[in-house]
């Protein structure tokens, strides 16, 4: 479906504020168009996607996020990589990789690595589940759903599970000539996690989710509707 340019020539003051959107990338003012699922509207000026709703998006995102969380659990607690060279064996888990910096002055880096590859991705998934669970069930959102989804959005650049997987691939190439590495179930869980996350992000339209949250706020529709 070709993207549609959102309408940008109109008299701003004749339109209710709730129907206007400012492009977060260039501030161009648009009147929010009615968009069918699988269609999308892009900014007239910079081309950024303003709205791209998908049918059944919330159910799909919820299912994929729940899957990711289970895969993350498996990735942390199962064997990750097994290295063997001339009769010697060493096994490393994902947490071992994070704890690699736990000597002396580098301890903070261990904490940071654990956060970037496990804690933040898992927290982000939980926040998305918390926000979407009531929407999937057709109920009012839970308290602080706005804060939860905003935090999930903020954490996105710091959620680096997919970068870690590419890091593993590079490390394997580096030791390939010197030792034999056997990937364990946690390795495959991590790879699956990355694929599921990519799929999940393709269903995620922030405008659609913000509209749903605003429309399902418990007894507080006044804030959205009462603007001049």
């Amino acid at each position, binding site marked *: 479906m070709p993207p549609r340019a959102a309408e*940008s*020539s109109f008299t*701003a*003051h004749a339109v209710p*504020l709730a129907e*206007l*959107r*400012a*492009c*977060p*990338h*260039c*501030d*161009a*003012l648009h009147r929010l168009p009615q968009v069918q699922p699988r269609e999308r509207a892009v900014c*007239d*000026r*910079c081309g950024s996607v303003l709205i791209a709703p998908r049918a059944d998006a919330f159910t799909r995102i919820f299912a994929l996020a729940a899957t990711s969380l289970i895969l993350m659990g498996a990735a942390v607690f199962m064997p990750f*990589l097994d*290295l063997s*060279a001339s009769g*010697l064996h*060493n096994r*490393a888990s994902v947490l*071992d*990789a994070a*704890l*690699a*910096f736990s000597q002396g*002055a*580098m301890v903070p*880096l261990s904490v*940071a*690595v654990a956060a*970037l590859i496990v804690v933040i991705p898992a927290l982000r998934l939980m926040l998305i589940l918390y926000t979407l669970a009531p929407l999937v069930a057709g109920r009012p959102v839970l308290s602080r759903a*706005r804060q939860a*989804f*905003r935090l999930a*959005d903020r954490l996105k*650049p*710091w959620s*680096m599970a997919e*970068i*870690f997987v*590419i*890091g593993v691939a*590079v*490390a394997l*190439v*580096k*030791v390939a*000539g010197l*030792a034999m*590495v056997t990937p364990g179930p946690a390795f495959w869980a991590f790879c699956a996690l990355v694929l599921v996350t990519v799929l999940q992000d393709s269903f995620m339209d*922030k*405008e659609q989710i*913000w509209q749903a949250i605003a429309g399902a706020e418990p007894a507080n529709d006044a*804030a959205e509707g009462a*603007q*001049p």
Partner: protein
Amino acid sequence: MTISARQAGLVGCLRCGRVHLPDVALCTRCGAALSSRDPNGLQRVWAWWLAGLLVYIPANLYPMLLTRTLTQRTESTIIGGAVELFQHGDAGIALIVFVASVVIPVGKFIAIAFLAMSLEKRHLMTEHAQHRLFAVVEFIGRWSMIDVFVVAILASLVRFDAVATINPGIAAVSFALSVAFTMQAAQSFDPRTIWDD
């Protein structure tokens, strides 16, 4: 003709796009703090940029990896690691490592500085070019963390006490900080100012 929310006397939310009257402090839809333009944004970009550059220097001077085998002890820096791969005949991999750990970090410093300067000197780049460069910087910045992860994985895997061990070097800390600081620099950027006259 396209007008901006600012030109219409309104304030758009940077997080969700909802439009507000100028006297509203928090977005009524997502709760984010509203500002028409961040007056200190550019200063924060330069501050994070400088911090990132300062810690990037020790990241290159000190070793990233300490390798100990029965017979020898070697320390390798970021550039040293790529050169070593090249000498072992793995030119393709060496090139990837060189691009990821040298070209991209250095390119990122140049790109952020160039973007910040082009906000003051408008003739440097067109608005669309700035917009695209910013998108690239935002996308690529976090991928530099790959070097830190590679060190972590190698150090946790190669642990055969007497025979061979790999330990992380202190450069890993300053490199990780440099990546985090440049990510902060990119995030401090208010992309809407690119389009202001």
